[in-house]
Structures are given as C-alpha cells and as structure tokens.
C-alpha cells in the first residue's frame, strides 16, 4: 500500500466518522430537551460537518481523481463509507446521544492533539483547527455525563444503559491495519492504540465523577473502517444524500 493510498483511506475514515456523527446530532434539531441544548447540539453538528468538509476535501486532493467533498459525501454508498460503527448508531434518548458523543469526543480530542504534530502539513493544519472545537465538545459532553449520571435515579439508570449499549463499539477506535501502520511509520498519524491510555483515563475519571459503573473490558464489534456497516447507516445516507442523488449538482 502506498503512502498516498493509506492517507486517502485514513482521511475517509476520519471524515466519514465526523460526517455520520454530525448527521446524527443534526437529527436533534428541534427535538432536544431544552431550547439551549438544541442550539448546543446543532452547534456540535455543524462543527463536525465542518471537520468532515476539511477532511473529505483533502481526501479528494490526495486521491487526485477530481472528487470534491460533495462527491465523496453524497455519491458513495454504505460499503464505501469508512466511519466507526459507534457514530452511525441511531439516536435513542438524550442520555444515549451524550454517552456516544462523550466516548467519541474523548478519543477525537486525543487524536487531533496528536495530529497537530503530523508530518503532513495539511493534516496538521486541519487538526489544529479541529482541536479547539473538540476541547469544547468534550467539555460539553463530559459535563452532561456527570449531570445525568450523578442526577436522579432515572437519569442514572438511562446513562448506565446507554454506556452498556455503546462499550462494544469503542475498541474499533483503537484498531490499526495497514493504513494506520503505514501512516504511523511515516509520522503522519499516531498509532491508534497509543491513544488508548489517555482515552481510558479521561473516560474512567468522568465515569467515576458521574457515579456510573466502571468501564468493562469488552470484545469489540468492528468493521465500519473497512466498509462493513450495520443496517442503520443505509437509512442515514438515504436521508443525507437524497437531494444530491435526486438532483445531482443542485445548489442553493
């Protein structure tokens, strides 16, 4: 695998993960439990879509076949998407969205911090921009994990249930194949497994403060990074891509 192929694939993995999660958050628009939180969640959604735009634009340049961000976002099907399985999981209650966001944010912040010193100047630049927003995302989601975990009996039970549903998707964030190994050797991206200690420390600290059950050892369900997705991503893409599929090139 050439470095160029690896970088293209890696940018899709990051970009698609941001895009799918951003879309899930956008589904809260008009439905969040409080007006203020509604604005907050859509802010996060827009930040994530913004990261996806930068990553997919760069992916298109690296690939060199003339595909731009829209082409990559709207004209690939499920098996060509490379996002983590966790972020395509459908929204349940607010607590589940917060737990999913928190587990992702704790990983993404660590990753982007490391990517700011990437030997690839473009990727380092994208990371430098994203890292500031990820700091706020993690602050926001961690705050809610504590509030809900250490809140009422009902909110505590819902948060515990949400984490139970999500743990199995977390190991995928730390997996490496030839793509990550090629980039790690070139100093372009960190070895994913090296992000794990900081992620575990962040997650464990917040769970303890939230009086939630400790993180269990899990065997992960993986595949999203190589295009093997669950049944939910197809519906997400159908909604997200509809307009560009029905009216290719439409603008407004």
């Amino acid at each position, binding site marked *: 695998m050439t470095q160029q192929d690896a970088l293209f694939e890696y940018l899709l993995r990051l970009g698609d993960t941001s895009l799918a999660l951003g879309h899930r958050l956008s589904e809260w628009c008009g439905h969040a439990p*409080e*007006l*203020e*939180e509604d*604005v*907050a969640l859509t*802010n996060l959604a827009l930040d994530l879509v913004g990261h996806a735009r930068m990553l997919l634009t760069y992916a298109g340049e690296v690939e060199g076949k003339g595909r731009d961000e829209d082409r990559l976002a709207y004209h690939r099907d499920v098996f060509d998407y490379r996002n983590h399985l966790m972020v395509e999981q459908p929204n349940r209650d607010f607590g589940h969205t917060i737990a999913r966001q928190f587990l992702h944010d704790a990983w993404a912040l660590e990753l982007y911090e490391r990517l700011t010193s990437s030997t690839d100047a473009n990727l380092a630049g994208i990371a430098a921009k994203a890292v500031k927003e990820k700091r*706020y995302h993690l*602050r*926001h989601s961690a*705050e809610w994990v504590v*509030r809900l975990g250490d809140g009422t009996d009902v909110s505590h039970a819902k948060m515990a249930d949400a984490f139970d549903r999500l743990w199995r998707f977390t190991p995928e964030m730390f997996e490496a194949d030839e793509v990550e190994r090629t980039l790690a050797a070139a100093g372009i991206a960190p070895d994913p497994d090296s992000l794990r200690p900081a992620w575990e420390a962040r997650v464990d600290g917040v769970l303890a403060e939230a009086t939630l059950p400790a993180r269990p050892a899990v065997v992960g369900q993986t595949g999203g990074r190589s295009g093997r997705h669950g049944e939910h991503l197809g519906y997400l893409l159908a909604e997200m891509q509809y307009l560009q599929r029905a009216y290719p090139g439409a603008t407004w």
Partner: protein
Amino acid sequence: MARNEWPLFEVFIRPKNGLSHKHVGSLHAADPRMALENARDVYTRRGEGVSIWVVPAAAISASEPGDKESFFEPADDKVYRHPTFYDIPDDVKNI
C-alpha cells in the same frame, strides 16, 4: 405534566477587550456553569464576544416603571449636568 423550569440567567457579553459587558439576553440553565456553556452556544455563535458574564435573573434588582417620575424626571431640567458648555477638540472621540 407539572414541570420545573430551570432558573433564568441574564447574559452579558463583552464584544472586545476595552469595551464593557453588555446585556444581550437571557436563558435557562440548571446552574451557573451550565449557564456559561449555554450562553457560549446561544449568544456567541457568530463571534460576538471575548468574555461572558451570567447572572441569576433573581439576583438583579430593577427599578419599577412607577419610579420613573421620581427617578428620572428630575434630571430633565438640569442642563448644567451636561458638559455642553465646553469646546471639544475635533480629535477627541467618544465623548
């Protein structure tokens, strides 16, 4: 269903260093910490500020509309309180 609203906070934003905080609106939040984050999300999305204050609305004492006469009208006929008798150099701004 009976529902307890979160308390109301008033939000003040400083648009840039050197200017003072200005009231921009209000929001609901469970506590000051959440109020700050909500204010960040609701009122600074377009780069409106460099600093935020949030104050519980209940902590603000306000003048009453009925006090208008005794509070404000006495100032109306005291022109000597306005520095209008001085020549102000053209170069001096913001007076």
